[in-house]
């Protein structure tokens, strides 16, 4: 007699979708693929588009995470309106830098992982729990990272228990590091971080925090060829997500365009962006 019932894996204990797939259908997992022997000329990393710069900054009451819109493949711009910042669940978001194909797949898996846990357990994971789950997924990709297909996400969320926005960064081995105030990943992150350092203050409003991330992305695009600046002719601007106690939302294109237009207007007179005082010493400076 053939047994038509759902296989035992469907009723096994556990609340992780990743673990369920690993047991029941491992071919669906990004981490189970093999690339074959390495070292035959080109690196696998040259074959697929790369996502570039993601920035995040906290403000009292929440966190902002923004990403530019460019994907590159060597010297070619593979896509000029790619989206690299995604909602992970209601109170968190993830931005991706690195091999776009694998990163997008990993984000999808992460989204299902969080929703799956919520449905099975009837409660949501803590923000730290979510950050750790993402670390596990990245760790599974280490083999491919070694062959040039690295994924380096930036995770931001609102911690309902602590009542504040938090940011986590990762390395390719799945190392998880909590960042204070702001952070950036991707090829333009060095420039973005320099910009954030000068512009960030602890008492930013939500709108100011959004402006700071747009400024940082502008500075990244200014000096890193793989990061896309604001595309004025096509009206393509960064993807911006704001997460507060009320949940996460993506700013509309019009809202982001308004901020970007103000940033660009300022740069018309000072192309390097707002100047910081030489001897600041105060965290609550007025005019930027």
């Amino acid at each position, binding site marked *: *007699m053939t*047994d*038509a*019932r*759902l296989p035992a*894996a*469907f*009723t096994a204990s556990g609340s992780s*979708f990743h673990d*369920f*797939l690993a047991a*029941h*259908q491992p071919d*669906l997992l990004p981490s189970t693929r093999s690339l074959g022997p390495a070292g035959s000329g080109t690196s696998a990393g040259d074959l697929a588009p790369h996502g570039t710069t993601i920035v995040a900054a906290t403000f009292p009451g929440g966190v902002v995470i923004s990403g530019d819109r460019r994907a590159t493949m060597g010297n070619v711009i593979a896509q000029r309106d790619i989206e690299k910042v995604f909602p992970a669940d209601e109170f968190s978001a993830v931005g991706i830098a690195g091999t776009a194909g694998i990163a997008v797949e990993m984000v*999808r*898996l992460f989204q*299902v992982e969080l*929703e*799956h846990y919520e*449905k*099975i357990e*009837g*409660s949501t994971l803590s923000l730290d729990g979510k950050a750790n789950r993402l670390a596990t997924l990245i760790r599974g990709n280490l083999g491919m990272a070694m062959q040039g297909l690295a994924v380096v996400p930036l995770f931001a969320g609102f911690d309902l228990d602590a009542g504040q926005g938090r940011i986590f960064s990762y390395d390719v081995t799945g190392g998880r590091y909590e960042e204070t105030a702001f952070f950036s990943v991707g090829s333009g992150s060095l420039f973005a971080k320099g910009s954030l350092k000068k512009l960030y203050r602890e008492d930013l409003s939500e709108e100011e925090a959004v402006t700071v991330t747009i400024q940082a992305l502008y500075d990244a695009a200014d000096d890193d060829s793989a990061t896309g600046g604001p595309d004025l002719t096509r009206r393509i601007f960064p993807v911006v997500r704001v997460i507060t106690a009320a949940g996460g939302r993506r700013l509309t294109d019009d809202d982001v365009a308004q901020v970007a237009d103000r940033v660009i207007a300022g740069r018309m007179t000072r192309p390097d962006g707002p100047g910081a005082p030489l001897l600041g010493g105060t965290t609550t400076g007025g005019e930027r």
Partner: protein
Amino acid sequence: MSAPFYVSPEQLMKDRADFARKGIGRGRSLVAVQYADGVLFVTENPSQALHKVSEIYDRIAFAAVGRYNEFENLRIAGVRLADMRGYAYDRRDVTGRGLANAYAQTLGTIFSSGGEKPYEVELFVAEVGEVASQDQIYRLTYEGRVGDEHGYAVMGGDAETVEAHLKEHYREGATLEQALQVAVAALGHTQTEDRVIATDDLEVAVLDRTRSQPRKFARIVPARLQALLGERGATSSGPGGAADGPDGPATDASDDAPVAPPG
């Protein structure tokens, strides 16, 4: 070793069916009602933590009566199946019909396999569409039968009495408020009296197509429930019959605002 007694297949299946039916009948009734914006589920369940109605996927909900551990198993299997399909294909490719079929196969196989006891459960799998005419309610029985329900459906407990009351009072295209009032009245209706069930003893959830999120399932918390039900007179407790599964102490009602029973 003695030869086993001969039992005719008819008798064997009848015995198994009687066994399952008895288990299901012991619990309390669960009602699914179609209303203008989707599908409403109401049941009597004093536990705020152990649910009989749950979310499976964006547009799909699961409701069950009978043995808790058995339907909880099926619920988890359904969530896994739906999440796996949505991940492998697309979120739109997860359908209530596919899920109902998988459940039917599972329940049917268990029912007719000699070595296992049949599941003492009955399920509803419901799916909301873009418009009311696309809404679906599937009924799955312990032996793997699938039925397509329209308007309203009742399972568990004294289903016949509740269904008779619903048949009399159900109206198509009702608002949530009207549908809820009819459903709660039906659950409180018995041969001898009409009980008023305390708000805290009700588990109410909807698949609401008007929700802006892709996930259309929502539980109705006691505070909102009270507002929807309005003034109902003095409450009385449930019938003496032994309750099935989820009757444990209410422990985890975290974000549901506590509400005093009406009256």
